[in-house]
C-alpha cells in the first residue's frame, strides 16, 4: 500500500491544471438544462475539451481519449472540479453509455459513436423509465419490432435526462409478446428521427432537466442495437453499474463542495452554534471517505477486479452526503438560505439552495436508494428475496 502519487502522476496533474487554467471559461455558463443556449454553450465547452484531448481521458486514443488509467482519471476529475469547470452535458454518453459500448459494442459501433461522444458532437440522453416502469424496470412496454435489417420502435419513455436538447437517446425495448427480463434489447435512436416526439418536463428547479419521449413507428437500423438481441437487460445492468459505481459522481465534486462549505462556515463562524461546525466537519469527512473508497475501487479495478454491489453502497453514500452537505450550508446561511443568488440582498448565498433542491433527486435517480438497499441486502448479505 502506497498512498503517494508517482512523479508521472504529479506531472500529469500539473499538465491538467495548466490546461484548465488557460481554458476554463471565466464566467459560469448558463445551466445546460435551463435553455437551448445554455445547452449549446456546454456543447461548445465539450468541443474545447475535446480539442485539448480531454474529452474522456480513459478512452483509447482512436476514440478521442488518452488511454489513461483510473487513477489518472481521478486526478483529472480532481483538477476539473478544483478549476470550477462546467458540468458535463454529455455525462449520459461519456460516463454511462460509453463504458458499456466499450464492453459490448462492435468495432464498427465504437468507431461510429465513441468519437462523436467524446468530441461533444453528439450529446446523449438516457431513456430507461416508462410511466409504468420505474424501479421495476423489467416491466418496460416499449417495443422493438423486427422489420428485415431494421427495428420499428414504439412506446412512451419518461424522466429522460437531457432529452429536451440532446441529439441521441438509448433505451430498452422489448420484442412484442416477450415478458419481464427476457426479450429486451438496448437500442439507440436519434431524437430528431421521424416519429419521435419530445415533451420537456420541468424539474423542481423549474428547468427542463428531463423529458418524456413518444415513439411512433420510429425506424432504426439493426446497427443501433448494443449487444445481442434479447440481451438488453444484462447490458442495461452493466450501464447502471457504471452509473452508480464509479463514474457518474466523482468524489471531486463533493470534495470541492465541502471546501466551499468550509469557506462559507469560516465567514459566518462567529454567529454560529457549535452544532453547525460539527455538521460541516461531517460533510468534509464524508466527502473524504467517498474519495478514499473510489481510489480503493479504482486500484482494485486496475488489478483486474470487477465492480459489484459497491455500486449500490456508493450510490446511497454520495446521494445522502450531497443532501447533508447542502443542509449544512443552509444552516450556515440561516434566514437568508431561501434567497436565490439574483436577489438584491443575496450576499454570499451563492447557489446553495438551488443545489440543495437538486440534491434531493439524488436518492431517486440512477436507481432509487430503496432498490439499492434491496440489492445490498440480497446480494451482499444474502437475505432472501
Amino acid at each position: 500500500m502506497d498512498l503517494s502519487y508517482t512523479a508521472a502522476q504529479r506531472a500529469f496533474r500539473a499538465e491538467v491544471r495548466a490546461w484548465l487554467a488557460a481554458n476554463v471559461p471565466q464566467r459560469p455558463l448558463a445551466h445546460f438544462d435551463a435553455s437551448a443556449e445554455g445547452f449549446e454553450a456546454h456543447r461548445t465547452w465539450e468541443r474545447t475539451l475535446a480539442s485539448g484531448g480531454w474529452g474522456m481521458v480513459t478512452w483509447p486514443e482512436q476514440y478521442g481519449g488518452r488511454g489513461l488509467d483510473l487513477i489518472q482519471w481521478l486526478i483529472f476529475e480532481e483538477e476539473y472540479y478544483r478549476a470550477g469547470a462546467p458540468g458535463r452535458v454529455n455525462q449520459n454518453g461519456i460516463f454511462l453509455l460509453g463504458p458499456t459500448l466499450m464492453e459490448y459494442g462492435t468495432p464498427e459501433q465504437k468507431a461510429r459513436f465513441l468519437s462523436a461522444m467524446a468530441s461533444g458532437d453528439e450529446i446523449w440522453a438516457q431513456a430507461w423509465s416508462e410511466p409504468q416502469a420505474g424501479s421495476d424496470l423489467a416491466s418496460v412496454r416499449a417495443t422493438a419490432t423486427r422489420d428485415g435489417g431494421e427495428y420499428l420502435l414504439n412506446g412512451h419513455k419518461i424522466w429522460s435526462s437531457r432529452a429536451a436538447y440532446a441529439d441521441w437517446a438509448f433505451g430498452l425495448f422489448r420484442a412484442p409478446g416477450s415478458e419481464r427480463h427476457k426479450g429486451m434489447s438496448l437500442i439507440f435512436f436519434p431524437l430528431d428521427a421521424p416519429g419521435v416526439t419530445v415533451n420537456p418536463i420541468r424539474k423542481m428547479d423549474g428547468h427542463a432537466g428531463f423529458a418524456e419521449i413518444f415513439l411512433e413507428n420510429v425506424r432504426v437500423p439493426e446497427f443501433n442495437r448494443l449487444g445481442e438481441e434479447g440481451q438488453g437487460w444484462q447490458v442495461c445492468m452493466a450501464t447502471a453499474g457504471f452509473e452508480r459505481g464509479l463514474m457518474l459522481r466523482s468524489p471531486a465534486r463533493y470534495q470541492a463542495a465541502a471546501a466551499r462549505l468550509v469557506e462559507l462556515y469560516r465567514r459566518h463562524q462567529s454567529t454560529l452554534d457549535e452544532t453547525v461546525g460539527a455538521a460541516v466537519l461531517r460533510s468534509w469527512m464524508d466527502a473524504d471517505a467517498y474519495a478514499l473508497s473510489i481510489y480503493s475501487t479504482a486500484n482494485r479495478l486496475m488489478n483486474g477486479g470487477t465492480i459489484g454491489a459497491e455500486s449500490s453502497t456508493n450510490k446511497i453514500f454520495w446521494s445522502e452526503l450531497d443532501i447533508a452537505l447542502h443542509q449544512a450550508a443552509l444552516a450556515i446561511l440561516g434566514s437568508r438560505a431561501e434567497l436565490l443568488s439574483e436577489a438584491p440582498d443575496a450576499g454570499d448565498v451563492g447557489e446553495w439552495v438551488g443545489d440543495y433542491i437538486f440534491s434531493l433527486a439524488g436518492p431517486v435517480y440512477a436507481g432509487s436508494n430503496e432498490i439499492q438497499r434491496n440489492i445490498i441486502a440480497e446480494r451482499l448479505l444474502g437475505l432472501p428475496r
Partner: protein
Amino acid sequence: MNFTFSEEQLMSAQAARAVLDDTCTSTQLRSLLTRDEPRDASRWQALAESGLCSVLAPESAGGMELGTVDFVLIAEACGYTALPEPLVEHAGVAVPLLAAAVPQLPLLGELVSGASTLAIAHPVNPFVADADGATALLLPHVGEVHLLQTAHARLTRQASIDPFRRLFRVEWSPSDATRIADAASGVALWDDALDRGALFSAAQCLGIAQRCVDLASAYAKERKQFGKPIGSYQAVKHALATVQVKIEFAKPVVYAAAAQFEQRDVQSRARISHAKIVAAEAADLAARTAVQVHGAMGCSWEVDVHFFLKRALALNFAWGDPLFHRRRVAARVHGAALGPDQTFGDQQTHA
C-alpha cells in the same frame, strides 16, 4: 498510488482470523467468564505461537518489524471475534512504544514471544486495560515514559459493562529507575501510542460492526414470522443495508489511516481520528441494529450480540472519545489546504 493490501498481508490476516475463529467460539468466550481469569492460557498460547505478538516489534527483538498496514487487518479480526485477550494493546501499541524507547531491552524478547505481556497507560485513558495480567506497565509521568513491574503498582479493578474488559486504576511512584524516556522524547512516543491505540480501536470496530451484521443476517434468514424469514422483509433488509453502507465507508478511511501513520502530521492524525469516529459509529449502529433484528433474543444474555455491543461502546470512548477526535479533524480542516487535490496531501509536499 496503490491503495490495496498485498497478497501476503491478506494471507496473514486470513491466518490470524482462522486462529481467532478457532479459539473465540461462543462457548470458549463464555467459559472464560465463569473463571474470571485475566486470560485463557491456551488461546493466548495459540495466538502467540502464530507470531501475532511480534508483528510490529523490531527484528533485533525477534519481531517481524512490519508496519501498521500489516497489523490493521489483524486488529479487525480481533474485533470480529471479540477477542478478550489484550493482543491489540500489547502487540499493537505497548510493544512498539517500548521498542522505540529502549530498542535493546531484554524484556522485549519475552513480550514479542508472548511469554509475558505489557499493559499501557495513556493520558487520554483514565484506566489501564489488562494491567493485572501484564508483567510490566508503561506509564506516563509529565511527558516521560516509565516502565514498571506490575508487582510494584497498586491496582484497583474497575468493573466495566464489557465483561471481558479488565480495567484498573494504577497507583505507582515514578523514580529515576523507572524512567525509560525523558519528556523531550516521550511526547512523540505518547503521540504515537495514541495514534496506534485509536487506529487499532477503529480497526476492531470495523470487525465488530461486520460481525454484528453477519450475526443479524444469519438470524434473519432463519427466524420466521408471518410464515416467512424476517430477512425477506424490507424493514429488516434496509436496516442492515444501511449498516453495511456505514461499514463500507469507514473501511477505506481506516486503511488509509494505517498507510499514512508514518506521516505524523495534521493530515495523517486527522485521518486516524476520522477513522476512529466513523468506525465506532458503524460498530454502534451495527450492534444496535443487530439487537433489534434479534428481537427479544437480542436483549438476552444468551445471544452473543451484547458482547459486541459492549465492546463497541468501550472502544468508542477509549483512546480518545468522539469529541477529542473531532477536534483533531477540525484542526486539519481549518488548518491545512482543502479541496479535491488534497485527499493525500501532507505537510511536506502538495499533492
